[in-house]
């Protein structure tokens, strides 16, 4: 029988006042911090009493650089924000510039964008499951299966955009190039095979008793708290808040597709994990429909300018539902070739706001699982 600790004492009041507290610095080099994230934890025995995230170890001045280069030259930099999902970053940035300049996007380009964004969601969540299991100690197996599947999506990305990870694909008012021959058939095969992989993954994970006892009831947050702390994406929805920007803003042409939004009810680590599994199935639905319905036509607005883009004076905030949450770009133009202000609203950073609240009262080993379930990418946290 596996005994799991009673986590009901989620406060610091009933700890022994005489006990000595231990300060522990986790990171910036730590196998489970997903990069160079650092946490300063204060421990009472093994229980976390206080937890202070420390940022900036990957602060590579994305915003400052982008304010000194042209609008076009920022696109490859956005690839490197959340380096697991460069295509959604591209889209968010392109969307903001399109808002800033008032550009329309042709029909076919919208479909391409949706196909790529949902493929990105698939591969991000696939890798996420692997990393999360790695944080729980199952280093290797789930990650190995996840990456085996992810490679198939990366092959699709490479044959279309030219690079496995750094796509640099979306352009203002459309996309850079059309599908090469046979791409859609290849994509269809990958998508048709995906449910099989998901079934296998679910069989591996979902009913595993160890996983359940390590995740259920760990790091739960209330929906009110989650909204107030600005959480977004699967983490917000795991608490039971029905808020998906694909449905709310209806950017792109998401309103033409029939898909559902998974909602959790406990807001704990288990729900956050399941959210990803369920989202992948919904993404597959969108993908299938989009590939079947994609029309012919131009892929870029002929009015769009590639070089020397000088948007009219003004500002715009565009946001999309990236696999991590709400990814927004806030741009101010002063009619110069460079943006006056270029701001990224990073979902990963803001999703960490409640990390301390989620962790207090849990064991230090659970902090890794909680952090893993938030799904951060340091390139985006620190920018």
């Amino acid at each position, binding site marked *: 029988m596996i005994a799991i600790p009673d986590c009901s004492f989620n406060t610091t009041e009933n700890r022994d006042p005489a006990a000595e507290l231990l300060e522990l610095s986790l990171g910036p080099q730590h196998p489970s911090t997903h990069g160079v994230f650092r946490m300063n934890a204060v421990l009472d025995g093994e229980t976390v009493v206080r937890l202070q995230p420390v*940022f*900036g170890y990957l*602060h590579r*001045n994305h*915003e*400052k650089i982008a304010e000194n280069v042209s609008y076009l030259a920022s696109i490859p930099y956005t690839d490197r924000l959340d380096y697991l999902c460069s295509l959604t970053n591209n889209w968010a940035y392109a969307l903001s510039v399109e*808002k*800033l*300049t*008032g550009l329309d996007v042709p029909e076919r380009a919208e479909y391409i964008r949706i196909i790529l964004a949902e493929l990105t969601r698939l591969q991000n969540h696939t890798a996420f499951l692997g990393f999360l299991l790695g944080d729980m100690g199952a280093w290797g197996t789930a990650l190995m299966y996840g990456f085996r599947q992810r490679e198939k999506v990366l092959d699709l990305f490479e044959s279309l955009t030219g690079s496995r990870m750094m796509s640099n694909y979306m352009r203002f008012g459309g996309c850079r190039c059309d599908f090469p021959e046979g791409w859609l058939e290849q994509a269809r095969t990958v998508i048709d095979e995906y449910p099989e992989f998901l079934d296998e993954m679910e069989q591996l994970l979902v009913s595993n008793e160890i996983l359940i006892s390590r995740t259920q009831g760990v790091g739960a947050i209330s929906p009110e*708290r989650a*909204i*107030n*702390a*600005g*959480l*977004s994406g699967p983490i917000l929805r795991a608490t039971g*808040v029905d*808020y998906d920007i694909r449905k*709310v803003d209806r950017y792109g042409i998401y309103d033409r597709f029939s898909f559902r939004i998974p909602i959790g009810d406990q807001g704990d680590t288990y729900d956050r994990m399941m959210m990803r599994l369920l989202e992948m199935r919904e993404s597959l639905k969108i993908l299938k429909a989009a590939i079947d319905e994609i029309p012919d036509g131009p892929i870029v607005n002929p009015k769009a300018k590639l070089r020397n883009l000088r*948007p*009219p*004076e*003004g*500002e*715009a*905030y565009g*946001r999309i539902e990236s696999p991590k949450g*709400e990814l*927004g770009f*806030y741009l*101010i*133009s002063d009619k110069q070739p460079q943006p*006056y*202000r270029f*701001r990224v*609203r990073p979902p990963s*950073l*803001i999703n*960490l*706001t*409640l990390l301390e609240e989620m962790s207090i009262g849990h064991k230090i080993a659970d902090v890794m699982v909680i952090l893993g379930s938030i799904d951060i990418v340091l390139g985006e946290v*620190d920018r």
Partner: protein
Amino acid sequence: MLTLETIRDRILEAVPDAGVEIISNPGPSGQDSLLVSSGHGLAIALFLRDDPELRFDYCSNVTGVDWLDKTVKEKVIVREDDEDVETQVERVVPGYLEVVYHLYSISKKHGPVVLRLRTADRNEGVELPSLTPVWKSAEFQEREVLDLYGIRFTGHPDPTRLLMWENFEGHPMRKDYCAPDDDEPGDPITARERKEEAS
């Protein structure tokens, strides 16, 4: 549909003598913003969050903007020798720092409302009220603004630098920040230098 004008009027109703001004956005995005006087920032934020019709419960994005001093050329009529003479005068409009909040409502599913708070000048140690007590999501982002723009937020629970190290000096995202020049002279990997050399 609530327009910004009605929101402004409602704010003025609830928080009397609060300075609220609509800043229009000339661009095609049409996202106008509300400029709020810093003294009433917290009260207005609370009102926006708790008003049953507005319910801006979700503060999505917090960011700083640095507006440099601007020289504006103006035509001024000067009385000279009992005669009105039109002359051009250069006037310096002092720069300021600005914090921009993008608010959405999850329960009402509307937004965004853009809230702006401005400092008086660009000096070291300018202060603005922190809106973290209203929206916790502003916590890290306000720290980032503090770090990169140097705006101090009064009432912030942890007013320390977010990204740079603790004993770092300066605020790198300010427009006039000069990065430490660490390209050693003679570094051949700098393309610009090689070019200068050849031309």
